[in-house]
């Protein structure tokens, strides 16, 4: 399942890059993160609680930064495991400066396997959309705060 989009942030590119490339910052933006651990510069782990219809599913996710060209492009791979589900995601973003603002183009290819996937796109697609929207909105706020701090 591929999701993609563009987003404009009223902050300089370096600011946005800083947040997006700081795993601790990002962990703070992701919904349902229960614990977070940095393994090394390019690898980190998180335990996440994903809302799923009537209940929620706990997933342990391994992240790996696969490409980084500051301050314009990065790509990330995530592999998650939970009860009845295996998730893999490849995501990348490009940042372009536009005056004092930053335009972000992002895309993610999410694969979900296991019983959860069997529930079909009907359930999974809205959840992925919702999760992405929550991250982007939180990022909006965080960028605004950071811009204010500067």
């Amino acid at each position, binding site marked *: 399942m591929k999701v993609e989009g563009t987003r404009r942030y009223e902050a300089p590119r370096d600011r946005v890059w800083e947040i997006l490339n700081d795993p601790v910052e990002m962990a703070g933006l992701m919904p349902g993160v229960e614990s977070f651990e940095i393994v090394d510069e390019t690898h980190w782990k998180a335990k996440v609680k994903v809302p799923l219809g009537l209940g929620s599913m706990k997933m342990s996710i391994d992240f790996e930064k696969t490409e980084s060209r500051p301050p314009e492009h990065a790509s990330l791979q995530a592999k998650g495991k939970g*009860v*009845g*589900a*295996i998730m893999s995601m490849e995501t990348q973003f490009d940042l372009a400066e536009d005056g004092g603002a930053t335009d972000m183009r992002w895309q993610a290819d999410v*694969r*979900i*396997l*296991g*019983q959860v*996937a*069997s*529930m*079909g*796109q009907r359930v999974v697609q809205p959840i992925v959309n919702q999760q992405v929207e929550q991250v982007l909105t939180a990022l909006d706020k965080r960028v605004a705060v950071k811009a204010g701090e500067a």
Partner: protein
Amino acid sequence: MTTTAPEQVEAPQKGFAGESIPRKEDRRLVQGQGVFFDDVKRHGMGYVHFVRSPYAHAGIVSIDVSAAEAVEGVYGTLIGEEVAALTDPFFEMSTPPGNEIRDYALAVGKVRFAGEPVAAVVAETRELARDAAELVEVEYEPLEPVVDAVAALEPGAPVLHEEAGTNVVWSGTFEWGDYDEALAEADRIVRIDRLYFHRFSSTPLECAGALVEYDRGTEQWTLHCNHQMPGIGIVWMAPALRVGTDKLRIVTQDIGGGFGNKITLHPYFVALCLLARKLHRPVQWTEWRTDQHTANTHGNERTFLDVEVPVRSDGTMLGFKVKAVDDAGAFPRYEPLGCIIWAQVTPGCYRWRHVRVDFTQACTNKSPTAPNRGYSRMQQLWFTERVIDVVASELGLDPVEVRKRNYIRADEMPYETPNGCVYDSGDYARCLDIALDLVGYDSLEERRRDAESRGKLLGLGIGSTLDSGTNNFGQSQLLNPELQFSGNNEVATVRLDIFGEIVVTLGTTPQGQSHETVASQVVADLLGVTPNDVHVRAGHDSYWNSHAGFSGTYASQFAVTGLEAVRGATLALADQIRRLAAIILGAGGPDDIVLEESMAKRRDMPEAALPFMACGAIINVNNAGLPPELDDVTLNCRYVYRPPFEVPDIERKFGNLTLTYATQIHACVVEVDPETGVYEIVDYAAVDDCGTRIHPQIVEGQVHGATAHALGAAMFETFPYDENGMLLASNFYDYHVPHALDMPPLKTGFIESPSPFSSLGTKGMGEGGGAGIHAVCAALQDALRPVGSPIVTESHNPYHRVWELIRDPAASRAGIEVSGA
């Protein structure tokens, strides 16, 4: 004991056969006193949960069960490596290289479909086993899956079974008659580039499962289970477990529906046998509903390519040519038998004489396929029915007339098909007339106008189906001449016990087909008693002496194999009773004795009568001084019925593959909303001809059930997979099975064309439901004529697909071509 059939005796003129007597099974079932395998409990038993693959295709790097085993209350585990060490792969029926496939009880080395069991966990409760299973760590190396059989045959497609080196399970051509001659004789040739029969399955109320005990002293397993074909089940299991078949005792009592998908349970059962032996305790497994959808066997999906139909201008069908690609899923568990079983009904109900079929079966990363109510014939019959309606549409002919012109006629019975099958009896045209009458065919045009006035499109469709029963397993040799299977058999024992009880045991495994009732009717008529006097043992037990290589309940055969065995054993018992009574009563000989009112009476002096109770007592407990000519009289008679089959001609792929052919002709009237594609079945008739009916109400019940199955498949039931090989209908929310409110008002009719090949005139029945799928497809195609005449090319037509046909009729017609010869 005797295994030879004695001379025939006449059944009473008016007997219990033919009457809808109260079902013997109902009292216990209605009162909740049935015994299903899940009702069987044992001290100290453990509950099994299977760890299943989330991947459709992946290598197994490692399996770590230590965390699961450390949980208190977990009794133990089993993984594929142990299975590979302790068992041999199940035998494969195909020819090389398809038979190189290695299929074990658990995945060994790699997984080939999502839901494939990779490990098993046993714990003191079912819930704990399930929770502990989550602690089993399996590391996978994902591989690219292939989820379409046609794609699986392309060069470069991912290969599921490296041992075979190909995804082809079986491939072959069938050439009967003279197809080139048919082309030469034709006025027109209709070509259809693709027809597609979709994947679905039956969803029995009772999921699969077993309680398995291992006796360390006798080294024998007992399986209390719901296997529906124990005869063949143990033939798969015993060699895998490296034991003789006597080491596997299979016991069933009540089974909550089978439909075919309880035939291929052997991988699970072998895993349970290993666990029971390893853990020194009985183990029980009940399949979860989601697993039933995901990993129990599905019905075969079949794509028909490059169809060519030579016809005369008047609609006379001369032959057909087709390339069929069948999807076996990840393992050929009952396959490749589906590659030949369709040939039982090669020309459907029609007089096609010239046939060329190129048949290939491929593995895909989906759940394995196996019999499902109408196994392999349903697909072929749907194909023939679609061809009839497409040809009628393209030549501007009336589908009713085309059918009548091409149906095999009653006066041609018994009819030999181009491949040597013998249709025993039937009158398709008469069944069709009854069906049309039931749905008010005469006023069809009026109803079309009425529907039109309400903004709806009305259409009529016909589904003609044959339910071929009593297999000749020799057909397997047409796939692989090395296979040592042919003929068929079933066993019954009938005995007269000490107090005159008549006790019947069957080799069959009824799943709702009322064998106790029907067998008691047949026995009662032959012995001159009532069905109340006949005690038919419930279920199956391979400890009973009523068990043979093909024992089971499958493929529409009880009314022939089961009842012939019952009849044979009962006739043998009747003969022994008469011989005994002749001596005791001083009659001239057995022929001077008649059996009536539970007594053996002298024909010339009916007051000289020996009650059955006395007969039973004399032989069993009061037998001193009996003359030597009664030495062989045991009043305990076993009979093995063997249908009169020959091994088919392997060179020509020719021979009789089934003994009886029941007929079902359905007529369906739909109303379609052209704005949305939503449609409703507003009238429906099912006409059945299964020869002589022993219990008409039971036949009618099966007709209703089979029709519901078919309408479900036509409208709601489908097992789609995404590109990753994930099943998208793993629960009843996504997989809608029709319930009472989804069923149209059902009108039924019948005729009886007794089979000349069964003593009772009966034919196996119950699988003819495919007719509903054909009828709905045909009715939709008829209804949509005013909106661009789209052609229905798929068997599954949910509302959105109908809407697509309305929106773009040309797309559906793109693959249809008519040319002059």
